[in-house]
Every structure is written in C-alpha cells, then in structure tokens.
C-alpha cells in the first residue's frame, strides 16, 4: 500500500511536467526509491493525470508482479538507484534541450541560474536508447558525477533526494536551453559576465 503522501508528490510533479510541456501526453516517467523498493509510474499512464493505481511498487533488485505494470524505463531507474545515491528520478523530454543534444556532446548553460546550479550537462548516446542494460549502465555512470544527463535526441534523466529536486534540475536545464536558443536567434556577440566561467566546461 503506497502512502497517500507519496501519491500526492507524484501527482503534483507529473502534472507540472505536463503543463510545462516537458513531456507529451504519455511520455516521461518518474520514480522514487523506498529502501529496497521502487515506486514508479505505470506503463502507459499519463503523468499529467496520475491516479493512485498509476503508481507501481516493485523491488529494487528483485522482480515481482509489479514489473508487469511498470514503466518501460524501469531498468534504467533501478540501475541508477543501485549505482548512485539517488532517491528520486525524473525522466522527461524537454524539447529545447533535446534539440541542443542533437548537435553537441555537452550542454554548457550561459544563463546565471543554470551556470550556478548545473555548470555542465553531459550528452550521452547509445544505439538502443530505451530499456537496454547498456543505456542504463551508461546513464548510471554519468549520474555518479552529474545530477542531470541528456540522452541524445531522447530526453533528460535527473536525480535528487526528492522528486521535487529532480524536477528542479530538469526544468532548470530546459530554461537554460531556451535562453541559449533565444541568444542564438538574437545573434549578437556574447558578453561574458561570469568570473572563471571557462571552468564550467570542465565540470
């Protein structure tokens, strides 16, 4: 039985992800770790309209009947939990960040907020990008050192102690990418305002 307080957290973050166009109607997935258990969105459920039965609980390492209903990204979530200190994961499809991921191996924000919070977001890639152990391992390895990572052409995976925190990193990245896009459209010379900013790319 999943505590109603936990359902409320899922419902609020899911709704915000949808309303901020960080996902399509049925895209993305979020989860939390409860000790040796994982609570994750049900496969096919709409994050923007979560009901209590859309939350699936299953083992962190061991399978049980919950896996028949869990999100297709369960493997990635489990692997991340086992290899990083994450207690919550937010996977979404931030459009501007996805667009930037198509042309670079890392996203280095230029705005103050994201420079301050993220410094740099690596972009990783794998031939079979969804639900494979190769992808899951690559993601978990990157998330050992970074709190948010982009999968090229697919979306972001962010970790945190709470869903709220993981969502925060996701929306910060998308905002940063929107600002970068606008700066490109304005197409005027960039005036560096951040001391030691050259180190962000080496973060």
């Amino acid at each position: 039985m999943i505590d109603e307080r936990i359902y409320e957290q899922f419902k609020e973050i899911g709704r915000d992800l949808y309303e901020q166009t960080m996902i399509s109607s049925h895209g993305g997935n979020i989860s939390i770790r409860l000790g040796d258990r994982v609570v994750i969105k049900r496969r096919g459920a709409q994050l923007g309209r979560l009901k209590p039965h859309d939350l699936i609980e299953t083992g962190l390492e061991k399978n049980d009947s919950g896996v028949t209903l869990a999100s297709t990204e369960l493997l990635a979530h489990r692997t991340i939990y086992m290899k990083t200190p994450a207690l919550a994961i937010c996977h979404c499809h931030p459009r501007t960040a996805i667009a930037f991921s198509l042309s670079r191996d890392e996203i280095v924000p230029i705005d103050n907020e994201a420079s301050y919070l993220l410094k740099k977001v690596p972009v990783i890639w794998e031939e079979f990008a969804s639900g494979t152990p190769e992808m899951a391992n690559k993601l978990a390895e990157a998330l050992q050192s970074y709190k948010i990572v982009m999968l090229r052409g697919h979306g972001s995976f962010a970790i945190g102690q709470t869903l709220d925190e993981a969502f925060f990193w996701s929306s910060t990245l998308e905002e940063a990418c929107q600002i970068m896009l606008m700066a490109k459209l304005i197409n005027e010379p960039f005036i560096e305002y951040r001391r030691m900013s050259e180190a962000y790319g080496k973060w």
Partner: protein
Amino acid sequence: MGGWMGKVLDVNLTTGEIVKHPLDMELARQFLGGRGLGARMLWDEVGPDVDPLSPGNVLIFTSGPLTGTGYQTSNRFSVSTKSPLTGTVLDANSGGFWGMQFKKTGYDAMIVRGKADKPIYIEIKPDGVTIKDAQHLWGKVVSETTKALGQNNNKRNVLCIGPAGENLSRIAAIMNDGERSLARGGPGAVMGSKNLKAIVVEGKERPDIVDDGKFKFMLYETRKLLRASPLTSQALPEFGTVVMMNVVNNIGALPTRNHRQAMFEGAEAISGETLTEKYLVKNSACWACPIGCTRISKTDKVEGEGPEFETTWAFGAECGIDDLSAIIEANHVCNEMGLDTISAGSTIACAMELSEIGLLDSDLRFGRADLIVKTVEAMGYRRDLGAELADGSLRLAKRCGRPDLSMSSKGMELPAYDPRGMQGQGLLYATSNRGGCHMRGNMLGLEVLGLPKLIDRFQVQGKSSYVILHQNMAAMIDSLVICKFTNMGVAEEYFARALAAVTGIQYSTGELIKVGERTYNLERLYNLREGFTKADDTLPPRLLTEPVPDGPSKGWVSKLEPMLKEYYRARGWDENGVPRPNKLAELSLAQFVEAVR
C-alpha cells in the same frame, strides 16, 4: 600526492616510545581521513575485551585530506576511541584552529596508547615530538591550561581536558583552542584515564594541492554558494546555531522538560534573536570559515564562546528554564570543566524529573535556573550530587530504578529534535552508531528546512532511504573533515570535485558517498563485535508510547518499528541488523565478515 601528509604518529604513554609510520594509502583512499580512517584504525587497535577507560583503549586523532588546504571550513579534525559512555565505536570532531595546525605538523593521524604514570602533555613541534610533565596543570580548568601552554591561534594550538576528564566523567569532552570541543561520548575521560592533560601542536608544513587551478575554481564556486544561501550567509552569522530555537519550537519538535512536551513556552526568551539582542558581544569564526556562526556572549558574570543551539536547548527547554543568562553561564562552566553540554543539560533534566517524582534526593526541579551552574561545576569535580550525575543520564536513571526516564539511545543523550515531530530523526537516532546524535546525519534539512527540498516530517513509508543517505553523507563529511554547515549551502558534488582537485584522485559524487556508507557499515560491525544487537536500535519508551500532548505534533509518537524494518532491508542488512556478506563485499569490507559471524 596531494591532500594527505603520508605519516602517522604513534605515541605509547606507558613506555614513552614515539614512532612514525607511513600512512597506508589504500586505507586513505577507502576511508579518506577523520572519522572513516579513525574507525578503520580503531577496528585493529581496540577489541571487545578492552575497557574504554583502561590503558588498552587508544585515542586516534585524525585530520582529513581537505584539512588545512584552505577549502571552506577545512579546519576540522576528529578523535576516535571506544566510548566510555556508550561502549560503542566513537568519533567526535571539532573546529577552531587545532586541526589545521595538527596537519601542519606533517601527520594525518596520531595514535595515543597506554597510560602515563603521572600527568603529562604531548608537544609536537617541527623539531620533534616530546612528552612533558603536566603535574602543574592537573586540576586546572580549560582556560587556565590553554593559556599556560601558550595558545596562539595561527601558530601554536592547545587541546586539553578539564577537571571532568581528569575525574573520568563519562560525559567529559576534549577541548581545543580554549572553547571548541570534541564533546560527545566521553573522549575527555579516555584522555584522563591516560593521565594525558594536553596536546600542543606547532607546524610549518602544508598539504600539496595537485590541481591548483581547479581548486581555486572550487573555492570560488563554494564561496559563491555559501554567500547565496540565506542560512549560511545570514541566519547562522547573525544569530548563530541558536537560530533554530524558534524554528524547531514552532513545528512542535522542541523536546521540553525531559521530553514530556515538544513545545516550550519560554522558547522566545532563549532564542537566537534574544541572544543576539541581549548578550552578543561579537561574532567569531573557525579557520578558513566564511560562515562565522561562533558567538561571543557576555553576562554579568562570564564572557566566552557560545552557547550553541543544542546547549541552549539542553539547559533551557529540556530543563524548563527560560533564563538565558543562567544558560550562558552553565555553558561557560561546561567549557571550563570540559563537559559535553548536551549530555550535561539532558542529565540535569533527567535528574529534575527523578527529583520531582521523589526518586532522587535533590532540590533540582524543572525551571530551577539558580541550580544549574553549581550542578554543572559539581559534575566536573564529581562532588556531592554532581558525582551522581557525572556519568550521564542512563547510569543515573538506572540507579534510581527508572532507566526509561533517560532520554538517550545506546546511552547517549538525545539532542534538540523530538522524534515524535520528526519521524526520520527518530530512526536516525535509533540507528546512530555512536548513540543518540544529530551529527550522524540530520533530518532537519529535509524535514524542517527544505534542504534540498521539503519532505513530509510525519511520513513513515520511505523515510529510511533519506535517513540512510544522510547518515552516509555525514560519515563522508566527517571523513573529509569539514563542517556540516557547509552542506547547508553546498552540495556534495562540490566536495567530490574539491577533493579531486586536491588529491588528483577523480572521486565522483557517488564514490564519495560510498566512502560514507563504507564507514557506516564498518562502525556497525564494530558495535556488533562489541555485543550490540538489534535491541539497542531503539528510543526511550516515552517517545514510542507517550503522544505529544499539544502543539503542531500533538498526538504523534515515534513510529520506529516499521521504519527500522525498512531501514535494515534498505541498508542491505538482515532482519537482525547485521550487514549481509554481499553488502560488505560491495563496500570492499568482505574481510570483516568473519569477525562478526
């Protein structure tokens, strides 16, 4: 090699032998320094057959790879020993200047073993290490001893015990730089049992920094974050740690009158705001600390450092006392005696309840501010009623036939957060390896302050994961060794990168937290080897069965049992709280399996 100095000093007080060893770098990589390295060394040194107050116990003083580098708050150091209060593994750490100066002597750690046949002190200088006579210092209070040995903040630093340590009080602290303390669990008594009055350090070496450019960037970024956080740039500098008094009271989680209540009607009178308005002389800071939470306070009778939040709570709300000047004076006497203020205040609160119900023959009553200063002094000198109280609340309450009235876990007095109003905090206390303690991880951030984000303080399901993460992070921070307040503005990924810049070893954030997990599990194994069991992972019965009578936490008790069950599973321990072999293998601790089988 950056960060570490590469040497360990070994002083045998029984024989007078002084030896230098190379630091085992594999251990240093696995445990960093401070608490982690101390726990690992203690495992080899002190087994279950050793009485904590016998010559067989050791004191292991450790710095960390960041100590003395100039990274924010890199002034701290740690002591590890077997606790005379709890019988568990113990580490305590402290700020000030001594830790930085110790590192400058060129050592990462110092083991002190055996027992001198008369009072002595150890002096470590660039030209050598000497054991010197301290008979003229024995009996002196901390400020006299510190002054007599030539304390000079940036050049020569003194660590010592006061009368409480000499008299083997099991809640005696080790004091450094005058009024800083390695407080909890009675390390001062271990020093006293060795006839070791003081350790004086003077150094001129500096740890190497492998990537200076990256380190400067990390200094810059860390400073930026600490300045941006209202907690580290405004609340702590302006009001000190006592700023938490009103915050914790307002949510109904401030233990009051030996935990009979969880809100104190006199909180405002002993708050950080009142301290600043009426008694603050000036702020002060430890070496390389931009936060500066230290208070210098003054009353008609005393002037000195403190009091901290926990101290103000222990002598204040927990004793039903709203007289801040009496609390400041009690804090001052604790510092002079060399006593842990949390345990001292909480033990007096326990004595007040025992006296009120007629089980202890004393005038102590809740609210008797006029008695606390002289009671603390009597505890330090082990005289009159003080002799009854000098070994902490559990031993006192047992002698009076009511051990349940000791608000302690594993024998260590609980700090200023009521587990009934902060469910995670209760689990954290119950599973703390050194006994009831808020410095083994603290749920204040998540359950009250919203750091990094707020969680429901009454939620039970899933709480174990947060507690485990924060226990691991605390063990890691204690092994670096830096101040936990830094973590209120700076995330652990910064510590990983700063450590990588200093040492040249590319620690990821995940690997760094794994160091904390490794330490936590080794400490657990130590306690199991000492004979502790699942039954010791508990809280005072009052907190499990007596609901909070009023306020925002009204009706709540600690729901420890379901959280504990989940905690063991999430830790990779069996149902009895014993780490499973695969978990130990994962943490490179497989060699210790047999020792606790």
